């Protein structure tokens, strides 16, 4: 039993001819909040999509909890315990909050406990409780983000992937979202997060990777990355 929950080895991937990721190797440790930071177009979203199985790798391997998941489709990975909160939230616009939660527990592992899990989520996100019968598309951006996180948690993931959860949200709402992420980790869920709000993210993450032009440039404890002069200049505007 190793410390690593997710392990990428020499992963390359892209869209058709366009290679976005090149030889990316990284590890997400059990119980950690691991952050991936980088500029727009550096390959962060692609990496999240590769891990969740939406994009196939062209080279390299993906390991999850000791198993090789490189060739597994997304449905099997969710079953194993990898859930994604995608960029742009991608909640189901015509489904009510309740239906969005229900479909979040589609996989076999949790299917029987849909009702119980929904209740838990509505407890964790009281705002959604107020909106439970409203269609997803009528929610505000912050509420949609909460719903996307809740939907992912419905599958009781062991690894929660978060892709730009603060995008387009008001600062107070961002603070709430980050608070929820830390609550989730406190419950034992490992978190792998891509975030443009580098300063806040590095304040609650344990470990961080910096990606540029599709390959990793730097890694270390969140603290050491935060203190790095290059990071300060490029991402923290200091």
């Amino acid at each position: 039993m190793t410390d690593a929950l997710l392990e990428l080895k020499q992963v390359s991937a892209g869209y058709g001819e366009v290679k976005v990721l090149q030889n990316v190797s990284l590890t997400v440790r059990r119980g950690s909040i691991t952050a991936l930071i980088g500029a727009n177009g550096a390959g962060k979203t692609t990496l999240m999509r590769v891990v969740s199985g939406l994009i196939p790798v062209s080279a390299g391997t993906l390991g999850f909890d000791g198993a090789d998941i490189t060739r597994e489709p997304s449905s099997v990975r969710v079953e194993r315990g990898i859930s994604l909160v995608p960029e742009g939230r991608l909640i189901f616009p015509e489904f009510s909050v309740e239906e969005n939660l229900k479909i979040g527990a589609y996989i076999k592992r949790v299917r029987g406990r849909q009702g119980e899990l929904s209740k838990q989520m509505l407890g964790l996100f009281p705002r959604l409780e107020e909106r439970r019968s409203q269609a997803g598309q009528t929610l505000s951006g912050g509420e949609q983000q909460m719903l996307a996180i809740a939907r992912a948690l419905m599958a009781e993931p062991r690894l929660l992937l978060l892709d730009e959860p603060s995008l387009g949200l008001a600062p107070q709402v961002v603070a709430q979202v980050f608070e929820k992420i830390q609550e989730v980790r406190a419950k034992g869920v490992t978190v792998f997060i891509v975030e443009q709000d580098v300063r806040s993210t590095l304040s609650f993450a344990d470990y961080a990777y910096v990606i540029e032009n599709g390959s990793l440039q730097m890694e270390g404890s969140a603290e050491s990355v935060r203190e790095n002069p290059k990071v300060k200049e490029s991402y923290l505007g200091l």
Partner: protein
Amino acid sequence: MDVLLSGQLLIAALVTGSIYALVAVGLNLIYGTMRMLNVAHGDLAMIGAYVAFWMFTLFGLSPFLSLFLAMALSALLAAIFYQFIFKRVMASSKLLDRAEANSLLVFFGIAVILQNGTAALFTTNPRGFQYLDQVLQIGNAAITANRLATLILSLILVVAVVAFFRFTLVGLALRALIQDRTASQIVGINIERIFLYSFMLGFALSGLAGGLVSMYEQIWPFMGFPYTIAAFVIIILGGLGNLFGSLAAGMILGVLETFGIAITGPNFRSILIYGVLILVLLLRPQGLFGGKRVVAR
């Protein structure tokens, strides 16, 4: 004018409408989940009609039993087409971008093969059989027993289809897939399996409708095309990807067509149907029901 108010037409309209609803909901399901335009959809009804005809003629099997056979055969054809043709149409992301156009061509080919294959096997002679053709009197309306049975059965089926989409997990997954393919993958839906299910269910409903129609109408190898056209008009009327909308729109088109023909004449059928299509496209391209969305992504 008496005819219009007699109730006779209303029953006829409901019979046509409920059949339309069954055919169209399957077309919309396949379009909604996969963005594929099944121009062979009505031809599955033709296959179902021939199944019912031959089962009755050769073995005296009641159409109500052979309906299951018609559904099973249609679903089997769906599974074969999906596994061997349409999986390839969607095999890569490049092909996926063109799946809508490519599927149209493939389905067109399938339509030609089904129609002409049936013609080659069974000739193009119109055929029919007599089953439950005694006339029943309901109030001042007269209806043959087979039409009444068709009406009752297809209304039950429409309700069953609604319940399936509304209350089952697969139904929920189908509706999720219509809204957003990526999001469906994210929650762990095996989308290939759901594609297969929508193919099979869509084809089966069309085959079933054909089996019902064969009881009271003459059948021939090219009977499917009018159903395909009607179904396309209906899914635009009810909203692309809107399953409940297409059930309602099927009934609406049945009423418009039946009363329209009664007022004008049978030669006007196509004009009426295309007229409805053009009006809807001009006035409410997103369909009669629901929001602003024309087509989900």
